[in-house]
């Protein structure tokens, strides 16, 4: 075979030789029917780094607001190149601290690829030619609190920060209180004389309050989440920890607080986000960002808000392909822009990593309503209790207990536990973690994969050669998102020749009609405008002064890696 020796060929050979990894110590192998607190997760992350020290790097990329760390794992085959030289996927979890199970998806994915390298060809290819970056616990300190302190399915969600929400001069002075000391923040309700309430007890199930019907007198009040008027200002629970929303304070499309609640005083003001943004600046090889949230089974891309500029049309095609395949891989999930499917929000993760980094960025809203027995897209209290009673033997619900409240007098405290509804029940967790890990690997499969086809080499005259080198991107993600040029994010792909002097260069427009878009300046650094699209080919033309023998052509993409091929000159 006279064709060039291809790096990709070498890689394929290495696939054939790939053996399953031999861990130095037993790697973590957790059960996936439950959720894990931060120290347990960190133990697993350390375990991967210990078991596969050459393949897994664990590091802190900065401190977090209340003294934790932003822990990053970097995973790739060290023999096929350093992490930054390969196309990459970044995944994270628990941006909103209460949306804890994104962490488990990250850890599951990491365990899966390490366990199956050398066994399953697609996993092997992934770790050989790509890098996986993971920050499983983005909002580290608050996620820790969700496990360790009394919390709710929705709280804490904020970054760890003291914000004076009620603008009274004191910050976080009136949060929830675990009145009955059961370790759960539930709800408060109060029985009142008939006519003074606007709810009544459901006749079939006393755990359910239902609003009064017309003509009916009520004898119950809903008093909201468990808590006191700690600061004596006549309001209950009006100044919780935060609020700084770690998914509303990124650097693209940021809006001040009075437009976007939780956006903080300026973009990336708090360390959890800034650590990641700063780190990502020196990791421009990231093509794909997947951030795991809950709830509702959505595959969300940007833009976060309707008034923002729409996504570049070329990039949208790529996103649509990935997202629609995701709908098939993740039953019940729907794909689209977050403002269309959910609501307007500014300063999102997806917008930041797309607009500031040129990465195809997706927020996955894990877990959906499980108790929707009649599929009418809503879960009634009856359905919720049926699921809790029958499928969890009542685990989900804390029965109402009487409590003497300093403001409201005798009340009842009870409701759904914090680890219900938004997080999956154990028996349902494994499948969801697995499917999402596979969706990440689906993105990994479609990271740009370049192949040099057989070049056409014409000897124009002695010492002058014309080379047409086709470069194919075999997968669906382009070597460079179109937004990179539009927002001037970083350089474009560049092709160079060594072993000869480049007289002219360009991109072939039509091979048969001899049309070439010549590059007027600096032909020795051929800029491949827009890179090479998904499953597309570009033919690079070089007119080179050289002696018979060999030339090396290098294709250098920030997000596609550096690839070289050797060209024989007759």
């Amino acid at each position, binding site marked *: 075979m006279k064709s060039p020796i291809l790096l990709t060929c070498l890689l394929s050979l290495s696939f054939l030789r790939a053996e399953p990894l031999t861990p130095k110590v037993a790697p973590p192998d957790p059960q996936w029917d439950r959720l894990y607190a931060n120290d347990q997760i960190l133990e697993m992350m350390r375990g991967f780094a210990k078991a596969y020290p050459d393949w897994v790097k664990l590091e802190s990329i900065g401190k977090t607001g209340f003294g934790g760390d932003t822990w990053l794992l970097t995973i790739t085959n060290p023999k096929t190149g350093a992490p930054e030289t390969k196309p990459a996927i970044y995944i994270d979890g628990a941006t909103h601290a209460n949306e804890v199970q994104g962490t488990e998806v990250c850890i599951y994915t990491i365990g899966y690829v390490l366990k199956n390298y050398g066994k399953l060809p697609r996993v092997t290819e992934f770790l050989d030619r790509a890098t996986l970056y993971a920050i499983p616990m983005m909002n580290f300190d608050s996620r820790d609190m969700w496990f360790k302190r009394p919390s709710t399915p929705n709280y804490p969600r904020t970054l760890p920060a003291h914000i004076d929400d009620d603008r009274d001069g004191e910050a976080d002075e009136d949060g929830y209180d675990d009145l009955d000391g059961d370790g759960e923040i539930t709800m408060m309700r109060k029985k009142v004389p008939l006519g003074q309430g606007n709810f009544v007890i459901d006749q079939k199930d006393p755990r359910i309050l239902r609003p009064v019907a017309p003509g009916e007198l009520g004898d119950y009040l809903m008093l909201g989440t468990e808590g006191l008027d700690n600061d004596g200002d006549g309001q209950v629970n009006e100044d919780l920890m935060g609020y700084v929303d770690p998914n509303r304070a990124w650097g693209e499309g940021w809006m001040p*607080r009075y437009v976007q609640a939780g956006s903080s005083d300026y973009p990336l*003001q708090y360390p959890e986000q800034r650590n990641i943004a700063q780190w990502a600046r020196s990791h421009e090889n990231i093509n794909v960002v997947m951030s795991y949230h809950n709830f509702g089974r959505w595959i969300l891309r940007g833009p976060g808000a309707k008034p923002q500029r729409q996504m570049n049309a070329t990039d949208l095609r790529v996103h649509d392909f990935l997202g629609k395949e995701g709908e098939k891989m993740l039953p019940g999930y729907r794909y689209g822009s977050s403002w269309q499917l959910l609501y307007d929000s500014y300063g999102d993760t997806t917008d930041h990593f797309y607009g500031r980094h040129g990465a195809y960025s997706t927020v996955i809203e894990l877990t959906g309503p499980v108790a929707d027995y009649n599929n009418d897209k809503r879960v009634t209290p009856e359905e919720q209790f049926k699921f809790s009673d029958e499928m969890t033997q009542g685990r989900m619900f804390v029965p109402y207990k009487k409590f003497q409240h300093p403001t409201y007098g005798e009340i009842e405290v009870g409701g759904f536990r914090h680890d219900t509804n938004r997080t999956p029940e154990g028996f349902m967790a494994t499948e969801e973690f697995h499917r999402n890990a596979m969706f990440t690997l689906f993105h990994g499969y479609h990271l740009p994969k370049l192949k040099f086809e057989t070049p056409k080499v014409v000897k124009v005259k002695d010492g002058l050669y014309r080379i047409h080198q086709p470069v194919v991107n075999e997968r669906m993600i382009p070597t460079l998102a179109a937004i990179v040029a539009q927002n001037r994010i970083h350089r474009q792909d560049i092709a160079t020749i060594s072993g000869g002097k480049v007289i002219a260069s360009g991109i072939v427009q039509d091979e048969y009609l001899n049309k070439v878009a010549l590059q007027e300046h600096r032909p020795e650094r051929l800029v491949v405008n827009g890179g090479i699209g998904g499953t597309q080919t570009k033919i690079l033309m070089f007119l080179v002064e050289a002696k018979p023998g060999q030339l090396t052509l290098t294709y250098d993409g920030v997000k596609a890696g550096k690839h070289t091929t050797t060209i024989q000159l007759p």
Partner: protein
Amino acid sequence: MLRHRYLLCLGALFLHTASAQYLKFTEVESRLTGLARQNPTLVKLTSIGSSAGGKQLHLLTIATAGAKSPEQRQAVFVGANLVGFHNAGTHAALAFAEQLVAQKDEPAVKQLLESRVFYIAPALNPDAHDSFFAPVKQRVSYNAGSLDRDRDGLVGEDGPNDLNGDGRITLMRIEDPAGEWMVDEKDPRVLRRADRLKGERGKYRLMPEGIDDDGDGQYNEDPPGGYRPDKNFAHAWAENDPEAGPWPSAQPETKSLLDFFLGHRNIALAFVYGPANNLLEMPRGIGVRTGDVGSRRVKVSRQLAAITGLEADKEFTIDEIYEVFKDTPFGRQRNFTKDQLAQFLEGGPVRSPEAEDLKFYQSLAADYKKILEKSGLDTKRRAAQSQPGGLQNWLYYQYSVMAIELDVWGIPKKAAANASPRPAERTAPVPLTNPDEDTLAYLDSSATTALVNWSPVNLPNGKNAEVGGVDPFLAIAPPPAELNKATAAHSEAILAMSAKLPEVILGDVEVKSLGSGIYQVKATAINQGYLPTATVLQTKSRSFLPARLEVSLPRGASLVEGTRRKPTERILGSGGTHNAQWLLSAAPGTRISVRILTQNAGQDSKEVVLP
């Protein structure tokens, strides 16, 4: 219509004699150190952070001992030269600090020093500061570091080159039939674009003085250096300008300033010495949408549909949506105004100054102009608008205080009656891109040596070119005599405006016994200052705490109704009031206290014994 013209220079070679008066960064530092050392009780020198190059962002805190600690007093901020090439601003800020110290015993100054605090940061872009003194002069705004400005994968590989060796980067023209530029027939100094519609032919290509070092066909497009902190603030930030930073607030100078302001909520008035002048030209806003907010039509999103019951994906006017929205639990809870709803639905914060706030800008401008005119300074001259993504815009639109950018000096208006109309551009006019009548007249009368003759140079590619233009600092750095006159006038103006800060006090606290141990307490807070306690914009942005009138009760006393704290977003100046009343249950002889609290308009308290 603007004519795009460039100057062809006839004048003699010129070296900027003003340099002697301007201070290098290290000289600024020693002046600051000296001032603090000589006045240890009055002046404190600290740093709010470091530049990208590791130099200090120095801050003077000037206040004398008084009834209140400096942190409790209303503060005036004066910051200068974040843009890097506005060395006149540094001079003015430093002169102001030195004047405060020198006049500390004069009654007006003494009173201010005892009741206010001045924060003065005269050199906010230390890495760029000395470009004015560099062997080759050019306007530099970027901090230290590296940036691939032209996104070609090579960093800082094509900076300017002083081809004619005159110590300044000016312009370069190359004779080329394909060029767009021709010599203006009326003024041979000026190059202007040929109008092919009129049959005119171009004779020259025009570019900045330099070599295409990296051979990419562009000249000086990637000089060494980092980002521009003066473009790195979040209001109207330019997302696809590499120099503006990877995201707003990313630069150390920017972030240090943000953290300083957010940590010093006592600031009520901020002055920024920079290339714009908000008192000679009122701030016009950036990306302003005109017309009535309510009549604009927007499509209703799914979520808004769920909240309001309106049909999703259908268009309604903002008035229609607001009618429904304001009565929803969500709308009531957050007390949304129509403006806020429009801002959320249409994707943006406030873009133009609030009309009521502009009235105060105008009022301050009137006083300012009087002071300038008294000193013989021109108040009719051109003035630029503040930079998008700049400090002044952030201070007004997001921090939400009265913020005033002042350029100290500018090219005076041409005396002749037939002066050209003012151009409508909003960023700093660089004189060479638009040699207006004023600039030409100024060159004729006062700066004849600022012109650099076209002189032939040989380019590395063998081509001939001519280099010439005007001094890059012509329009922004006045000669020493003018500079001193202008800074003195500005110090006087800032001192005068500093006397107009809001100042809340408690008026009479009326107590009425209603019998049976029930008392009615009425209190009034009065703003004795000229400026309101908050800008109108602040009442929307809510970036400061409201003014809070509150009563404190000892054990045993209680409120019959309601809460002890009565907030308001804004108390007007010149005697504007905020009232509150409480009904108490307490024993006779109980001592209660009433306080008015603000972050940047003062605070006051009174104790009352119930009869």
